[in-house]
């Protein structure tokens, strides 16, 4: 879990999280964790770690910067850093169903023994995306370096993937065969995530087939995490499983168990809709049926000008959405929803304006 991240990135991530904070990053989190990691070659190691992460998520740009500093027994330590960047754009005006994604990432790690690793990865994807399913194909190239190697390892290969979303469930499958040092490897990975009340659950599996000439065995891995939010900004995270060796950066396969306290600016939603919300429009002289998807919360209240800004509880529908029927006078109405009795937010996908108090307020129009 915390296995691929340099101390510079850790410091950068921490300082960015502190100084840039809410103005620029859409979300940040810090995990304070206790971990045990087992390696076939080095036995089991216990560590304590701190792992900050900041995330920007706009409609066409997604980026994260994360780091981890872990202290082991006998004053040993390791620091790791990781950065991701993704840019989505339409390749041509005449190809409206397609979009192109450029993905880049960089990793690095430093160990107290002086051992260092670094890696980069670039990928170009061509997506066909619908509202709840999508496919992509593309190509990828990765490089890796370690302080004990004499050169840089390079892997290239095609990639293909599919994703789907239903309710609070979100699944992705990726096929990434790659050619490394003259031999082809097959690799498939899958990931499923969902939210239910204050609990987020994520699971993953993977398999890699190694060619005979490599002398390496086929390998599989799998694991997951459970995140239990006890306030809107704090959670307990339990993780466990196995992860694959990194052939490009020469990092070993491992087994891990971890328990962490997560402090976060807001909970990550399973699905983020279009970043530009739209005003809600009720039908003239008909009750407005307000339905919002607010994953992973236990209570949602509606507050608006028509309630005199007094909270009215919304009800949870069988599909997981929260709903309330209201009958309103014609005009422009303003409202918020209050999550778990404390967070005033604009529902996902709904247009908002500044409320004049440093927050946002949603718009509902009755013609």
């Amino acid at each position: 879990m915390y296995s691929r991240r340099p101390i510079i990135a850790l410091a950068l991530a921490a300082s960015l999280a502190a100084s840039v904070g809410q103005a620029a990053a859409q979300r940040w989190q810090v995990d304070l964790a206790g971990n045990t990691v087992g390696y076939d070659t080095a036995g089991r190691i216990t560590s304590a770690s701190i792992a900050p992460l900041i995330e920007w998520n706009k409609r066409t740009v997604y980026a994260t910067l994360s780091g981890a500093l872990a202290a082991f027994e006998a004053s040993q330590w390791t620091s790791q850093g990781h950065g991701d960047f993704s840019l989505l754009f339409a390749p041509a005006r005449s190809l409206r169903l397609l979009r192109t994604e450029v993905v880049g990432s960089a990793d690095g790690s430093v160990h107290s023994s002086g051992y260092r690793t670094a890696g980069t990865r670039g990928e170009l994807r061509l997506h066909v995306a619908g509202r709840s399913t999508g496919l992509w194909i593309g190509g990828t190239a990765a490089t890796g370096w370690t302080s004990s190697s004499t050169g840089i390892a390079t892997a290239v290969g095609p990639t293909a993937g599919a994703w789907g979303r239903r309710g609070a469930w979100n699944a992705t499958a990726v096929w990434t065969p790659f050619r490394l040092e003259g031999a082809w490897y097959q690799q498939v990975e899958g990931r499923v995530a969902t939210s239910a009340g204050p609990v987020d659950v994520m699971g993953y599996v993977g398999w890699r087939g190694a060619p005979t000439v490599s002398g390496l065995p086929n390998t599989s891995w799998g694991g997951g995490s459970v995140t239990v939010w006890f306030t809107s900004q704090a959670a307990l995270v339990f993780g466990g499983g196995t992860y694959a060796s990194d052939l490009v950066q020469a990092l070993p396969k491992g087994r891990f168990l971890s328990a962490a306290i997560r402090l976060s600016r807001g909970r990550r939603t399973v699905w983020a809709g279009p970043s530009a919300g739209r005003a809600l429009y009720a039908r003239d002289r008909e009750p407005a049926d307000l339905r919002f998807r607010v994953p992973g919360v236990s209570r949602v209240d509606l507050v608006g000008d028509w309630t005199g800004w007094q909270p009215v509880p919304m009800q949870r529908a069988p599909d997981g959405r929260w709903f309330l029927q209201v009958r309103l006078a014609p005009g422009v109405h303003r409202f918020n929803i209050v999550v778990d009795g404390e967070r005033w937010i604009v529902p996902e996908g709904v247009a908002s304006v500044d409320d004049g108090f440093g927050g946002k307020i949603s718009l509902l129009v009755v013609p």
Partner: protein
Amino acid sequence: MRGLLLAAAIGHIATASVAAQGRPTVEARLDPQTLAAVRAIIDSARRDSVPSQVLEDKALEGVAKRVPPPRIVAAVRQLSAELRDARALLRAAAPRAPLADGELVAAADARRRGVPTAEVSALRSHVPATAPLVVAFTVLGDLVQRGVRADQAREVIEQLIAAGVPAQQIADIPARMDVGLRVGAPPLDALRSALPMPLRPVKPPQPPPKPNPSRHGLP
């Protein structure tokens, strides 16, 4: 199931409770000093035909959000100024058109969402005076926030109104446009594919006016 029924019961109780109590008033929710400041702003706004209920609602919103009283007064004053500006703008654009409170609020919201003053004014003046514009102003804000140039968005809305497209169909456009945006279509293409009817091409962008050399350095 029991949980759902319980939630439903609680919901009805809470709704009934709010309805029974009626809307709270600023007199009941604000301390005397804040009330005096807010009342003065509201009375002044009312004299200028600016809707006062919206301002009272803003004060109640501030109380509900536990905002310090000075910020409540500042927000009410700011909203009053925006509504007053919007009223002057719409009045100047169409002096004889009836001006509903909802249109005033929608125009002010459109400005807050990044629609230039000139486009709000042009939309009011280019459509018949009797055409209600609450939905039109709000959709204009939706389109601009989706990356459509304000003059192009305004021209599309004008054409739809001129063609007699009902407000409800115009209101559906931003949601339909999101389908195109999700698959990476440029904003104007996504807008075109979301329209309920084909329209004539919107005007290409106008070059900025050239400065008149003879005016340089002259009073």
